[in-house]
């Protein structure tokens, strides 16, 4: 059985709309990997529900990260998946650890310090959060 979702994909200042029709398993991976929000679906399947609840949608995760990083943005450069947190922003290592603590509580996960040490970009942080959310 196939299901369709409409996805709004934000890239810099532009936004693309996709209509995706696929098997639930494939949809799940679409939802996990894009920087976007589900806008509408034609009938929620269990899989989609799981992606939304236990796993977090990529868009939601990225949005939450950006909310914490916004105060450390420099100049006009937008924060994107490729932003190197410690380098492209004015955030110091202690503030990064404090942000991680807030994200942990928001998503009800724990991100060990040695894992944080390996994270450089916004995308990597989002990957980690999604992975830990899915494992919950």
């Amino acid at each position, binding site marked *: 059985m196939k299901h369709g979702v409409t996805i709004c994909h934000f890239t810099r200042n532009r936004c693309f709309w996709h209509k995706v029709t696929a098997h639930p398993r494939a949809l799940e991976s679409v939802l996990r990997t894009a920087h976007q929000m589900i806008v509408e679906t034609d009938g929620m399947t269990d899989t989609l529900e799981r992606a939304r609840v236990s796993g977090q949608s990529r868009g939601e995760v990225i949005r939450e990260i950006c909310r914490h990083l916004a105060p450390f943005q420099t100049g006009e450069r937008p924060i994107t998946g490729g932003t190197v947190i410690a380098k492209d922003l004015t955030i110091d290592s202690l503030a990064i*650890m404090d942000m991680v603590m807030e994200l942990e509580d928001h998503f009800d996960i724990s991100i060990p310090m040695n894992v944080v040490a390996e994270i450089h970009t916004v995308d990597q942080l989002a990957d980690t959060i999604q992975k830990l959310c899915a494992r919950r």
Partner: protein
Amino acid sequence: MGLFDRYAGLLEAYRDVRTTGYDPFQIRMERVLSPTEAIINGRKMLLVGTNNYFGLTFDPSCMEAAIEAIRAEGTGTTGSRIANGSYTEHVALEQEIAEFYGKKHCMVFTTGYQANLGLISTLAGEGDQLLIDADSHASIYDACKMTQAEVVRFKHNDPSSLEARLRRLGDRPGNRVVVLEGIYSMLGDSAPLREFIDVCKKYGAYVIVDEAHSLGALGDNGRGLCESTGVIDDCHFIVGTFSKTLGAIGGYCVSDEPDFDILRVTVRSYMFTASLPPSIVASVRQALKVVKAKPELRTQLWSNVATLYEGLAAKGFKLGPEHGPVVGVHLPDRMTAIGFWRAMLDAGIYVNVAVPPATPNGVSLLRCSVCAVHTKEQLEHMIEVMTGIGRQLGVLDDRTLRVVGGAR
């Protein structure tokens, strides 16, 4: 990339710090006169930044004990306890500290830093989970870099934040090891230890408490926060230092764990560094006797804390959340803190300046540490001087002056 390029940001910050003409990180005490006075830059200064909470560095009985020990056993041990043997006095000191806490075992280290570094990184091993307070001392953070355990931080002094993290571990295998401090070294606030212990019990976690700044200061017998909150028996490991209240140098850990002594051949910061010299062991043993014999020093310390804390609060300074032997004065930014520190020095008073990244939440602080042997006059003079500087630098304005005691 050059070796020092990665420190470019730090170098810049350090340059800022030195613009005042003095380098707070390279202050030279030309001569220390007493626990509360020293000659700095050719001038007699009032010392309010030494961690010398009981003023025991100049206690005649401690000094005599150290001198006698040097005459009897020489200046140093020239080796480690494991490779080169213990002196009778090392063992006696360990017994005395264990007795002081009513615990079965004690291990003495060459510094408190090494005690934390070695113990924490060894106790929590591969497959274990180490949970630390976000405002932990550098020695605890450094242990986290060495451990094979997974490390998670919880919000400072927040038992519910610890509980959330223990809960999330669910039924994953591995020991849970929680590290807390009695009194925190920057703002002088103490941990809600009883609440933390309740959470740890609920989740079967081991507890390590670092009483570095609370030894002597808290508890009816000066054992620290674990005593004043009645949880000594619930603390699996209590760590501390000889470098503050006891006026010397060294660290210790006490515990009732039956196999505790295996740590002597597993903790590398114990095994691979020279043991404390006889003079230090002797002065520490004597200082511990003084702590037991003179509870009035504790009373005097807290009375001085009240004088300084309430005096500064009444003038409108923003201070740490509660009375403590460390009084942290919040200042709006790094440069104001450094300017304030420098002005204090010019006025003959030495305190510490603490700026990011050494401080929690990026705050800039003047860190004052109170001594039992400060006189009321010395502290009142200090409050007056700080009020003057505070007004001059615009840290205190007329409006805040009217909000008497409203400093939080």
